[in-house]
């Protein structure tokens, strides 16, 4: 069983990229499965189904999506083994810039789109910085200059990753990306495996559903802002 984690901001085109890449992967691995992590709802499983790819969906609902991911990824792997898959691809919505589902020794892909602006690679955090491969989407509707600047910025944020432009609609670049996926080695269980970076922490009353604002309702791991004016504001 091979495993690859794919993460990226919402609407970056993760599902489309995985579907186009799977076209090439299918020539090597006969059975490919996907586990799609999302928050409230998703209809992406229908897209996978249409593309002939087995998929399960995990919705974190009112739980922190990152913690939900870590608590379930090994179960996903066991499910995929039972189903006899050759490769399992996890797609996680990568909602919070602070989070990252990437696991040590498991190929990690980050999908971002170049419409998001030149500052985005800097802002995305561990999900991009700890990835082995960065797939950049939506390059077909921005200028060549913006593509080049964007790819430079990605390289600055993560000089170790290879950067591949992928068109989620035509599939251009997906062949190249499939090579990154095929570097996965066999993994039997994730029991004891380590995340590449910690997920966001949280223990405060809001973690258990508190809805009222005010210091009386704040206990535990609460962090208070420092009101520095713009000149010194954090970068």
């Amino acid at each position, binding site marked *: 069983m091979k495993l690859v984690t794919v993460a990226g901001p919402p609407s970056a085109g993760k599902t489309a990229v995985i579907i186009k890449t799977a076209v090439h992967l299918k020539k090597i691995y006969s059975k490919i499965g996907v586990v799609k992590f999302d928050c409230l709802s998703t209809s992406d499983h229908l897209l996978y189904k249409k593309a002939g790819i087995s998929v399960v969906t995990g919705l974190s609902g009112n739980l922190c999506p990152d913690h939900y991911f870590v608590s379930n990824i090994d179960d996903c792997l066991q499910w995929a083994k039972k189903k006899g898959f050759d490769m399992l691809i996890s797609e996680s919505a990568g909602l919070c*810039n602070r989070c990252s589902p990437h696991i040590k020794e498991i190929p990690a892909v980050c999908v971002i789109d170049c419409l998001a*602006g030149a500052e985005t690679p800097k802002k995305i955090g561990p999900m991009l*910085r700890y990835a082995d491969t960065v797939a950049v989407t939506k390059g077909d*509707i921005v200028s060549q*200059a913006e593509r*080049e*600047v964007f790819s430079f910025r990605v*390289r600055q944020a993560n*000089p170790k990753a290879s950067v591949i432009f992928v068109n989620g609609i035509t599939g251009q670049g997906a062949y190249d990306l499939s090579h990154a996926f095929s570097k996965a080695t066999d993994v039997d269980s994730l029991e004891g495996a380590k995340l590449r970076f910690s997920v966001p922490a949280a223990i405060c009353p809001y973690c258990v559903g508190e809805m009222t604002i005010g210091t009386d309702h704040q206990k535990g791991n609460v962090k208070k802002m420092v009101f520095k004016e713009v000149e010194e504001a*954090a970068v």
Partner: protein
Amino acid sequence: MTELMNTPVAVIAEEHPYCMDYFRSVGVSIADTELTPREIIDALDNEALEDKGFSKEQISSHFIEFLKQAAMLKSTAERSVHSVTIVGGFDKSGTPENFELILKPGDIVCIVGTTGSGKSRLLADIECFAQKDTPTGRTVMVNGKILDGEDRFRLENKLVAQLSQNMNFVVDMSVGEFIAMHAASRMIPDIEATVEAVITCANELAGETFTYETALTQLSGGQSRALMIADTAMLSSSPIVLIDEIENAGVDRRKALELLVKEEKIVLMSTHDPILALMGNRRLAIHNGGVKKVIETDREELAGLEILQCVDEKLMQLRTMLRAGEKISLDMKKFFEL
């Protein structure tokens, strides 16, 4: 590479001026350039780093890797492509294409055919340096050689720049700021002069001038096309330029092609515009997914091109009149007499 970590950044910056930029990008401001990267990184607060999603090890190893890559980027700027060879494969019905085409810097090749005939497939084959492993079975070689696995994927689209009608500038910056950012990412030493040259050149291509301060997103269709062409010609590292249906009348097409040729680009252009098509040295006629004919532009066609350019010139005059708010009061029949 350990010695780099123990060299004062002021010294590193002499060879790698963008090294400061790297620290800025991870949110570290350097108070004293006499410090070494090791000292700077060691002094960072672990908890603050954790908050930002960083670790010291990562910053160190990324810093070294970034300098390596940037140096490589500089050297690839000098990498030269003498030729690109396309060896035919098969059309959709499996019929062999039987052609081999060698493209050299300064060549302009047009691609013609109906929508769906397979033009984008050909462009895609070039972009990924097909090795009989794409649906068309074509082979694409650089300098007469097949790129081996690692090279092929390392290049990361850097050999090919693209330009199409669908492309817009989307960043919210001024023309000057953005072109400077592009020049900086190319490690170009004299950024100011380069930016000026690109803008001057773009203004020559566009009918209407814009300045350093104009916002990218406020450019007219013709102006942004012109800027894309000038930038691609002068700032893009890619020796091959793929142009897809770029027929916008707001650009001086002849000058645009002359510029790309002067900058030693290999130009592949998908177009149905008669003037553009005849400006190419050759054109590939595509049908049913395959290259059906390779047509060399001959004397007869070139004579026709001159007439076409006269007609185009007249149409441009009418545009200028319209733009100025004039009435089009002229004997149109006489106006179009050649």
